């Protein structure tokens, strides 16, 4: 836990000691923000051309100082890739923190409900079947299908939750069932697809920010902006839920409604994140754990902390993906998984030790 949580001094009131711990957490949030900014700037400087940080910052202020080629590198590659990494990381970290609270399960992640599997199925459907009659390019069709399928999956989960008054256990099991169903359907499509298409599907599932552009970034930002006020409104209720479900219910907090709201937000955030960058594992799982360790579970700090931790992990992964093999940008999904698996195992072992 955070260092500032010391027992209160004799003369100090509990409220004053608590406010002191709140100030400590605000400071930690600020440090996380600074770390994200620093990582973002480093990420911006990495790439095939020799554009340094100062060139880029000057170029951002006065575009005339850049050559047309440098402008393309800055505005169409480095900046959108780095911003996309931050946004997707923040969306997945945020979604992960909310789903872990709603399902009362620290091992839940945005992918627990099968939404990423649905996005993959959507992308595979766009790749395998002939959609030429729509007049849309495949680069548009793939994220569109991935988003529509992921959204469809979230609507099915909402429907099941409402129609059957689903318990936490039922939702998790239903999510797992959906995940395997989607995987089986993707495998079926791959079975019928030619070798090139199979390769494209596999590449899509590896996750990459190199498909980013400003339209996609705007859409993610708008959806995150839409979810934000609803999340803010639920902060105290979600914290109360961590104190105990029956305890919160007995106070008049409508837990069912709260949980449905969380499911909807998590579905939207996950759908929009995976639709544009593919499957990025572990960010939504590990981000909230880092935030919990640093900031505790007061959701006023835990949720922004999870979003910032998610953004930081993705940004660092983006840096690693460009620097591990010179001249090659590794798919981000591979890097987050390679970094995430040991972290995940360490968290499980730590949890086991606590129990």
């Amino acid at each position: 836990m955070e260092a500032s949580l010391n027992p209160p001094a004799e003369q100090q009131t509990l409220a004053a000691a608590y406010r002191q711990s709140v100030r400590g957490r605000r400071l930690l949030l600020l440090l996380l923000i600074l770390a994200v900014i620093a990582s973002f700037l480093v990420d911006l400087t990495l790439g095939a051309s020799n554009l340094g940080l100062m060139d880029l910052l000057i170029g951002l202020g006065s575009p005339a100082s850049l050559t047309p080629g440098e402008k393309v590198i800055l505005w169409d590659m480095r900046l959108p890739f780095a911003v996309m990494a931050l946004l997707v990381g923040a969306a997945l970290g945020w979604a992960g923190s909310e789903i872990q609270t709603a399902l009362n399960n620290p091992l839940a992640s945005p992918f627990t409900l099968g939404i990423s599997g649905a996005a993959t199925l959507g992308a595979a459907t766009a790749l395998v079947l002939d959609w030429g009659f729509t007049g849309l390019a495949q680069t548009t069709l793939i994220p569109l299908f991935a988003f529509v399928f992921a959204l469809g999956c979230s609507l099915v989960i909402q429907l099941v939750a409402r129609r059957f008054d689903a318990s936490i256990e039922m939702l998790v099991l239903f999510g797992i069932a959906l995940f395997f169903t989607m995987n089986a359907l993707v495998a079926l499509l791959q079975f019928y697809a030619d070798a090139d298409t199979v390769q494209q599907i596999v590449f899509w599932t590896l996750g990459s920010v190199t498909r980013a552009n400003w339209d996609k970034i705007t859409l993610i930002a708008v959806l995150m902006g839409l979810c934000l006020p609803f999340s803010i409104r639920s902060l105290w209720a979600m914290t109360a839920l961590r104190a105990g479900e029956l305890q919160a219910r007995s106070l008049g907090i409508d837990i069912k409604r709260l949980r449905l709201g969380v499911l909807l937000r998590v579905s939207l955030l996950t759908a929009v994140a995976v639709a544009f960058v593919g499957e990025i594992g572990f960010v939504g799982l590990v981000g909230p754990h880092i935030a919990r360790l640093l900031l505790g579970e007061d959701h006023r700090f835990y949720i922004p902390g999870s979003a910032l931790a998610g953004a930081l992990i993705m940004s660092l992964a983006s840096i690693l993906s460009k620097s591990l093999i010179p001249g090659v940008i590794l798919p981000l999904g591979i890097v987050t998984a390679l970094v995430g698996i040991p972290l995940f195992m360490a968290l499980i072992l730590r949890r086991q030790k606590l129990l």
Partner: protein
Amino acid sequence: MNSVLDVEKFSVGYRQARIIQSLSLSGFSRGQLIAVVGPNGAGKSTLLKGLAGLEKTSGSVTLAGEELTQLSFRERASRVAYLPQSLPQPTSLTAYESVLSLCRATAIPLAELEKRIEAVFNELEITHLALRPLQELSGGQRQMVGLAQLLVREPELLLLDEPTSALDLRWQIQVLAATRRLLERKGSLALVALHDLNLALRFADQMLVLAKGELRALGAPDTVMTSKICRETYGVEGRVENCSRGYPIMIVDGLTEMSAI
């Protein structure tokens, strides 16, 4: 005597599966601790949840002259507090945060809330635990925090569902003694489901004996827990006697023959 709580024709559960059937209770004074006892499946938890408004119910529940069933859930929750059988979750929330977050859902202003938390933590002697995460506290300490979550709201009626079931002997006594002290000071009423009859005899002003969802007896502990009630509700041959220090204690002589139950 005017009863602070009157329950009339109170049923809990759905029409096809009523667990509590047409129960009527009266004769409760302010500051009293009422032990709700009975064997497993008697309906103790169901009764408390029903009174808290957490289960589907029918009938009337009047608290200090006001019909609770006519109030919105939030209004009812401001007067009636329910402590579930499960302890507060072992999360990384601190004890203080867990109380604060639960009470932010109520209409109590923040400054007032801070004063109340301070007073309740002092009263329960858990001030030193306030800024420690719940996951680092023992079961007994967490139960005290659970009690604080309720008491901060200053409810008129406390419903405690087996608050001592997960605790060792020392914490059982501490939780019930703290509850008693606060009831006497605030003049609230508490219905406390208990399995341990000796604790009920020691701490309760009245005992409410339930079996199969029906009221079997209600009154002063030493008069209620007769050998007959003990046999009929628990299937145990037992009697209440005073120990050498004058406290009533339950003595069990053996199990009742099945044919006699």
